[in-house]
């Protein structure tokens, strides 16, 4: 294979490999934009992965799998929402608890389902006409599964919602200054609940993608830290849905390369790449002055809001 083909193939696969990260990151961006730090993405993803796999396996319908995976992620996020928004507990520890709980529960429930390959998966398709565009057509429109486009669609939609509509202003104001938002008559808790649940749904979907498309089977702990990479990607993409698109695909290409380069390097060392990059990426960003200024997190991130009584 010539190097051009290599690059095109890597980028094409990056889209497929980056999609679960993209879905998770978009959800986390919304939760954090509304001021809730949900570190339980790993737990929600793994539950989505198991429930998605189970549904697809039993019903033979991968779409139902995605739906139920998303629902499982959403349900798990409700625990977080209740404890962090209604009870106002410390969010760092809460996220860890959710991760442990999700990993444990999916491991217990999924015991008998390991090692069974899923026979139904999503068909890959090439978009007619568009696939003939030089380079871009080969990367974006050749042999991709539909979820890749769903991910891109979500990114565009959620970007539009966050920055071009009054709903977006509402969400961002809740994350920046909940007291003022409250004074303006915005129902802070409701907005936060909705954003956290959206985050859970998308994380669950990302998880289901892992067990239905990525590796069509169930293995306990199969998210292997992807949920944590999502947390890093959220910061890396400065809480911006379109930047998340780029960030996820960069990581997607790393995941693909860690398989592709195995003949030349020990697989264990290649597996380190995405994790190492998660640490290095913010480092590169912080060197850049202009970006550093933009790196501001939502001002009320991780701080529970409670109207002061009397």
């Amino acid at each position, binding site marked *: 294979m010539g190097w051009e083909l290599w690059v095109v193939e890597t980028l094409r696969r990056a889209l497929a490999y980056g999609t679960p990260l993209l879905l998770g990151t978009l959800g986390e961006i919304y939760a954090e934009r509304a001021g809730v730090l949900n570190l339980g993405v790993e737990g929600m993803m793994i539950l989505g992965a198991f429930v998605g796999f189970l549904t697809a396996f039993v019903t033979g319908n991968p779409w139902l799998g995605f739906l139920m995976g998303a629902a499982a992620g959403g349900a798990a996020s409700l625990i977080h929402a209740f404890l962090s928004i209604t009870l106002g507990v410390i969010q760092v520890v809460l996220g860890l608890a959710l991760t442990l*709980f999700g990993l444990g529960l999916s491991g217990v429930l999924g015991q008998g389902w390991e090692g069974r390959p899923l026979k139904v998966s999503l068909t890959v398709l090439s978009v007619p006409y568009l696939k003939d565009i030089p380079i871009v057509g080969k990367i974006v429109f050749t042999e991709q599964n539909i979820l890749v486009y769903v991910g891109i669609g979500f990114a565009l939609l959620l970007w539009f919602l966050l920055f071009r509509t009054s709903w977006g202003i509402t969400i961002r104001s809740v994350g920046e200054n909940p007291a003022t938002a409250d004074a303006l008559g915005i129902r802070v808790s409701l907005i936060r609940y909705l954003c956290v649940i959206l985050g859970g749904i998308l994380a669950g979907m990302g998880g289901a993608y892992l067990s239905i498309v990525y590796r069509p089977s169930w293995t306990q702990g199969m998210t292997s830290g992807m949920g944590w990479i999502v947390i890093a990607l959220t910061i890396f993409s400065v809480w911006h849905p379109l930047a998340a698109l780029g960030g996820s695909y960069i990581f997607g290409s790393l995941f693909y390369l860690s398989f592709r380069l195995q003949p030349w390097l020990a697989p264990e060392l290649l597996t380190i790449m995405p994790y190492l990059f998660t640490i290095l990426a913010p480092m590169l960003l912080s060197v850049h002055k202009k970006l550093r200024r933009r790196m501001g997190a939502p001002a009320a991130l991780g701080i529970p809001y409670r109207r002061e009584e009397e």
Partner: protein
Amino acid sequence: MIRLKIRKVIHPRWTSVFGVSVLSIFLSFFFIGFVFFGYGISPITAYYEIFIETVGNVYGVTQIIWQSIPLMLCGVGLLLAFKASYWNIGAEGQLLMGATAATWVALFSGIPDLFQVPMIFACGFAGGAVWGLISTVLKSQFRINEVITTLMMNYIAMNIVLYLIHGPWKGEEMRGFAYTDSFSQAASLPTIGNSYIHWPTLLLGAVLIGVVYVIVSRTKLGYEVKVIGQSPGAARYAGIPYFRTIFWVMLISGGCAGLAGAGEVSGVHHMLRHPEQVSLGYGYTAIIVAWLARGNPLVVILTSFLFGMIYVIGDVVQLSFGLPFQIINVFTGLILFFLIASESLMKYRISFEREEQ
């Protein structure tokens, strides 16, 4: 007229803290009962069996103490970090790097037998400390959040161990298996009687709990840690150097986890093997061990024993009922949910008061 009154309490009494903690643990046992039920096992039978096999006999108790050793060491280190509000989630990786450093001493350093064990612990401490301090350097130089870095370092450590046991360190005598060679007698820790309790590590754990207790309650460093933990702004105003304090905190925190790793390879496995066998998630469970101790190092003795018991329960449940070991994560997750939920409820005291008209 009698009115319901809800008041804010800043410092809840320790009796209510203790009561609520015990209640949280019982509540999670209650919910786990449903898991047993779902598997067609009567929860009462299950808990009876668990009771008999854990605290109900001498062997069970020695198993619990054995399992609590790494939890104690990691837990007391994390407690110090959490006291400074430094979220070190990387005890797992620090433990593994301690184990790796200890393995290097045992198999490749070639130092005299007499110094093997002290060097194993010294290098284990150093391995964990260095691994933990990387996050501190990254935070001070590039302001990268320590939750992310310490976590990612866990996965990196895990893969380094995997690489070593599959590649350069793969043992000669272990045909086909990804282990290192076995440690020599001189590099293995003694155990108490027939039990698995490698007492030198247990002793180190007890000593470090004492050391951290003294640091927290008697030293300037402990005072600075407390101020930074409660209000970083106030600490800066008072001229307390943030990163110098965190440096010492992470040196101890990572070092403790490294000692735990050294103890595991030298006292239990006598070799470096798959990371999930070297550490059964001790580094993650220790987060809760530390959290449950609520800032008091001495309580770590109690909480690590409790979670040592949960590990033994995991074994019992696996052997007696065929349930997966993963159930211990459900336990720890649930206990943590209830604990942090009760934390916020404890801030309020509900009372009925007679109101004069």
